[in-house]
């Protein structure tokens, strides 16, 4: 059976005019199967987020993929045209960002932001999309979705805003969700709530998750597989309990020593 997402020896370079160019990814190999939860851990600046951005073609200015290929269900997506790629974003792969409040448009009601994504991706009517957004908010554990949908992002707590972000990412029922440290900005109790909800929704949609975090505790809790990144490469990849119990790479060993699990 084909893997959902395959990344083969991907290199990324970011060029800049007056500084020398940076190579954040130096040959990354990664596989995400169907209905799998993969975690990526590593220190700051090792290229964890850059992998997610490369998959969705959201590289910063001047950045581009130099080598390697990215396959989704066996089809190459890194060379696909921009028009076709827009149909992948949101509908097949979507992303949740780190800072929940700044990932929401400050001048739009959150209900409209969620329903807009469904409306323009699936070309449905406004009412249909709005109802769907309300249902999804309720499924994400928001007590009074009708009232909350009319709020603006600055009127919400971080945990609530992150649920809105998750709703935005899941409203078109993607097969793969990329999460860029989605719980870093939240306190410990809401962290666990949000993660539980995320996991429930993923099982409901039969979707996979690629989870970037530097919080080893969270990764150990929710991920079935884990990859350890160091300096733009994945140095160790395997089942989560194996990696955490018997790390083979020296960097992983030091990382686990530094963390209190």
């Amino acid at each position, binding site marked *: 059976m084909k893997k959902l997402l395959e990344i083969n020896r991907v290199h990324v370079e970011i060029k800049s005019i007056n500084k020398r160019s940076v190579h954040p990814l130096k040959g990354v190999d990664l596989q995400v199967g169907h209905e799998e939860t993969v975690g990526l851990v590593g220190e700051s600046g090792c290229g964890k987020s850059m992998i997610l951005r490369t998959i*969705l073609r*959201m590289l910063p*200015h001047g950045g581009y993929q130099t080598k390697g290929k990215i396959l989704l269900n066996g089809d190459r997506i890194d060379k696909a045209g921009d028009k076709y790629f*827009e*149909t*992948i*974003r*949101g*509908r097949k792969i*979507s*992303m949740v*960002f780190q*800072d929940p409040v*700044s*990932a*929401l*448009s*400050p*001048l*739009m009601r959150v209900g409209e932001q969620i329903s*807009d*994504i469904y409306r*323009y*991706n699936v070309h449905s009517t406004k009412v249909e999309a709005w109802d769907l957004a309300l249902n999804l908010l309720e499924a994400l554990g928001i007590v009074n979705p009708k009232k909350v949908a009319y709020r603006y992002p600055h009127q919400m707590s971080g945990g609530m805003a992150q649920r809105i*972000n998750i709703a*935005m*990412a899941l409203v*078109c029922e993607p097969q793969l969700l990329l999460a860029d440290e989605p719980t870093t900005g939240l306190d410990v109790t809401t962290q666990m709530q949000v993660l539980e909800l995320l996991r429930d929704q993923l099982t409901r949609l039969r979707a996979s998750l690629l989870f970037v975090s530097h919080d080893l505790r969270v990764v150990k809790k929710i991920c079935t597989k884990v990859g350890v990144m160091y300096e733009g490469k994945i140095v160790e990849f395997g089942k989560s309990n194996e990696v955490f119990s018997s790390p083979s790479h020296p960097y992983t060993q030091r990382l686990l020593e530094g963390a209190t699990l």
Partner: protein
Amino acid sequence: MIKIIISILLKNHKNLQKMINQLRRPPVFVFLIMLFIVVFGPLLAPYDPIEPKPMNTLAAPSWDHWFGTDNYGFDILSRVLYAAQIDFSLALVGVLIGGGIGSLLGASAAYRGGITDFFLLRFVEVVQSFPVLLFALALFAAIGGGSRNMVLAIAIVNIPLYLRIIRSSLLPLRTAEFVDAARCAGLNGFIIVIKHFIPNAKGQIFSLFVLSCAYAIQIIAGLSFIGLGVEPPHPEWGSMINAGAGYIMLGVWWPSIFPGLAIVISVYAINGLSRQQMTDQIRSSV
């Protein structure tokens, strides 16, 4: 100001006191009178503005003709009132077209960056390097005068103004996380520009809109003064000043002074309104 009028129309009487306070401000008060004249001017006018009375040319202001008559025997009060409607509507349509296109292009330039941004900015520099009146003259030489081309000229003159200001005020959004999030969710560029970029520049667009309306009235009057734009028998402030200009030395001051005053008062009222809007915005944001 506009918000308060709307809320009163929606029967929100809590704002009635605020409305009365607004009316105490001179520009707002004058602007509302202007607005009344623009809407109901033709009904207030005592005579037909393009019906000449050859027996009664250059009559001094009197009870029959408050502002006097001009060299064809047209009643100047009626013409000033009719001209208000023509001037304001030409300015409004021109600014709406130009401002709409300009804001859209400015927001697109801010969103796309790169080569789109580069070429749009060079376009702005080319258009803005000509003096406005000279640019309009060249345009009229190419495609002819008339009120429709006047609107076109005003639109083209306004595009770079809006483009540059809206672009620079939206530039920080290019790297904003919510724009990235919207792209990741599969929204295309056009929808992001319309729904995420433009609303963030609402304040700037509105202030600029009010200011450029005043400027457009000056341009229209200026072009009509030199005989382009609105065709002569139709009343227009600029061409009325021009028609009366030859008689000022003979002591016949009324054909020019009254349309001139109309221009001064309307531009003052509009500019004052814009300033008021700006201070209100600053106060509410502090």
